[in-house]
């Protein structure tokens, strides 16, 4: 081996030092925007595990939650030779079937819900969005059956050009029906940034990039307001979000948007060390341990599911009765329309912040959550 001057080592170390400042560049949690590509939006946009890559004005490639690459082309363009037809989507999409409440709320945020939605997987009585109630009454929107057992005949009759789903198991069947599908969930929970930007992922399907940008700006403004109002507030409440069911304990992990929001609003999320999918299962012991000194508990259960009071929750599951929020803290349950209101994400974020720090929001009235009383209202009246 030849001996050479030690300046080689110095050169390499200098190169490293020169590149290190990159590590200190502005970070935005994996949802970075590339150079702008004109009115249509950035040339490459990553939204958590989703991505949009604008190859040319006639071709945009998107990566969905299952890692599938779908190609968006103008309605009149021929199908590219290098693509499987079931993965080519003509835009703007005119007829959509959707599984998730969140996806549908995003369609509403884009302003395309009324014109495009033709199929849903929840019956009319479960909807709180007026456009869907009316659409189902008029027959424009079809109930396709429960998400676990879709009626494919009805799906075919509703002639969707696109299905938004969380269930990859239907894709082989949809391929057989020549209906393209986009998987809109991912193995890891959506972080706050992904939740805010998901609208930008769906926008190119409907050529509604401007509406998506406006929505994102609205949410960003709300977050800025939350930061400003809660900066330096003390004490920081300890928050837990989840529930105990008959056999399982489910919580929102620290990487989920609620976990991040709690931290951003000067509060302490009890499951911030838990990482993984949304509504993740943890051990009962961990849940009870975190509940020992929590101040605020957000339950998944709605009033319909029995969350009418702390007493009712304790009756549903006696194991939960000893956690601090039930004994001396506060418990909040979502109102029925909460899950269908992602188009009002700015209001939801503000409301959660107002719950965590009521002193920063004097006179705030809740619209998406309800604080559970200690005992059943009826029992209270009797006493």
């Amino acid at each position, binding site marked *: 081996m030849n001996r050479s001057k030690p300046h080689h*080592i110095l050169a390499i170390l200098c190169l490293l030092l020169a590149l290190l400042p*990159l590590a200190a*560049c*502005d970070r935005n949690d*994996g949802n970075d925007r590339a150079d702008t590509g004109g009115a249509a939006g950035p040339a490459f946009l*990553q939204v958590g595990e989703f991505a949009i*890559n604008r190859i040319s004005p006639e071709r945009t490639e998107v990566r969905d939650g*299952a890692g599938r690459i779908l190609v968006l082309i103008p309605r009149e363009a021929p199908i590219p030779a290098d693509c499987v037809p079931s993965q080519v989507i003509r835009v703007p999409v005119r007829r959509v079937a959707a599984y998730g409440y969140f996806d549908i709320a995003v369609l509403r945020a884009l302003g395309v819900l009324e014109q495009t939605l033709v199929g849903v997987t929840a019956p009319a009585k479960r909807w709180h969005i007026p456009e869907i109630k009316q659409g189902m009454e008029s027959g424009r929107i079809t109930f396709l059956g429960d998400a676990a057992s879709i009626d494919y005949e009805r799906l075919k009759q509703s002639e969707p050009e696109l299905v938004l789903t969380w269930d990859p*198991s239907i894709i082989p069947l949809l391929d057989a029906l020549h209906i393209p599908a986009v998987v809109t969930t991912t193995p890891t929970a959506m972080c706050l940034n992904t939740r805010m930007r998901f609208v930008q992922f769906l926008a190119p399907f409907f050529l509604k990039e401007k509406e998506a940008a406006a929505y994102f700006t609205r949410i960003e403004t709300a977050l800025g307001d939350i930061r400003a109002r809660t900066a330096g507030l003390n004490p920081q409440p300890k928050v837990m979000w989840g529930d105990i069911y008959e056999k399982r304990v489910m919580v929102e992990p620290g990487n989920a948007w609620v976990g991040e929001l709690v931290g951003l609003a000067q509060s302490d999320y009890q499951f911030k060390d838990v990482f993984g999918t949304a509504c993740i299962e943890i051990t009962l012991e961990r849940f009870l341990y975190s509940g020992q000194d929590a101040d605020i508990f957000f339950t998944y259960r709605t009033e319909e599911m029995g969350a009418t009071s702390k007493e009712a929750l304790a009756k549903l599951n006696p194991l939960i009765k000893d956690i601090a929020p039930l004994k001396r803290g506060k418990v909040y349950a979502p109102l029925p329309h909460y899950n269908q209101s992602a188009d009002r994400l700015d209001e939801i974020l503000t409301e959660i912040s107002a719950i965590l720090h009521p002193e920063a929001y004097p006179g705030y009235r809740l619209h998406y959550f309800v604080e559970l009383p200690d005992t059943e209202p009826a029992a209270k009246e009797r006493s």
Partner: protein
Amino acid sequence: MNRALFLSWRFLGSINLTVGLCLALTVNLIWGYFSLNRRTPLFTPLNDMGLIPWMQTYGVHNLAATGWFFLLMILLALLAGNTFVCTTNRVVQLLTAGSDGKGAGHRKWLALKLAPHIMHYGLIVILVGYLVSYLCTNVLTGRTLVPGFPLSLPGASGQVTLLAFEPEYYQGQRLAFWRNEVIAARARLLLDDGTAKQEAILSCTRPVRFQGYSLHLRNFAPKSQGGMKMKTRVDLYVRKDPGVALYLAGIALFTLGLALYVYEWVTHREATTE
């Protein structure tokens, strides 16, 4: 030209370069550790879209988090070059010195002396194999198998069908919360190449090879007995990876070198203790 080659060869053969690269790699990997923290979605597509498209999209648009990776590739390329030149220099020396001797004993001595260098060449082949993998692999993402719907592979006449999903569930008592959860996913597949049919078992650590493709288990459902009723499905990564043969060859070469090295070490120890 010759002088430039000579200077490059001398630069790459420097021990100082080796030390510098090892230090630089250490610092770089520490940087990578912090950059990777909870940013896996940025790097996951690298597994299926290939190195160049990844660099052009995720890579260059997230330099704060991916800069360390670009640098890692430069450092690894330099390390491979450095290893190759140093090893070749030494091998040439050994072969020159060994050209005088004859006989089986001499050949054995030479083979044993070459052992560490065979390992070094093996390492380079492994690195090149990985590079070929990331540059040339054709990956079909998001392929899902459900019972009754066969999967066709592009450019191949055959079909893959999910016959049954037969996972192993945890039935122990010690981890109560894990009871009835899948601890070993196992799918029984039917591989039909148009002329013959055969069954194969696919699991997390056991890919199935079929018509030049390898099928890897990516995800599956259901994940437990009882609980939410999920439809049976098996998500696959389907890969056609020309790098596999190279890194398997590299591993074989490395193992050969290691075996010779251990043999020499054992025989040398026995000789010195006697």
